[in-house]
């Protein structure tokens, strides 16, 4: 399935893009993370959370065709 992946802040500097489509054949977010870490090894050492449908989600979440965001620590205000 084709997933729409978004990267923000520091993470988008590492990936060199804010958004990309990734073809993913696994099932959980952990598997997606492995795929993304393979592409961007530096990302693995960074502090981040994942969001799906405007909520922070954990790595064992099962994926359906949708948007996933990689979010570095929040620093609003």
């Amino acid at each position: 399935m084709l997933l729409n992946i978004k990267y923000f802040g520091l993470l988008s500097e590492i990936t060199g893009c804010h958004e990309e489509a990734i073809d993913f054949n696994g099932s959980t977010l952990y598997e997606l993370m492995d795929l993304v870490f393979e592409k961007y090894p530096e990302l693995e050492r960074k502090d981040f959370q994942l969001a799906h449908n405007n909520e922070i989600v954990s790595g064992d979440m099962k994926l359906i065709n949708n948007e996933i965001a990689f979010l570095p620590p929040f620093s609003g205000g």
Partner: protein
Amino acid sequence: MEKKPKNVFIEGAISSEFIGTSIAKHQSKTSIGAHNIFLGQVRADKSNGKSISAIEYTAYEDMAIAKFHEIREATFEKFNLTCMHIYHSLGLVKSGEICLFVFVSSPRRKEVFKALEYVVEEIKAKVPVFGKELFEDNSHQWKVNT
């Protein structure tokens, strides 16, 4: 009735005129006896001898607007407020300028003291906004909330 989430983002700094006008608009709401206002200002912190000249804010806007809305609803549940406004900058805000404006109003003062702190802390913790701190020599670092 389900309320529609408001857009809280403002491009660039929040001006003192905007803040003044917001206060003035409440003169017709005469059940209010107390306002409390938080203004977040960009600090010219020093790092390795260089000063921060501005912060460039970006956000995961869809999620941020949803989170601002949840915080709003939760605050109205917890505290006896008449009204509440939140504005956050996106884009470039120079040091000394305002990047966050939170405005809570109630018939009584004790509610607004508690409510304002709650809202600001919730925003810092839950809203996906990211600050890129720019130095005078065009280098940068990513802001970390403390």
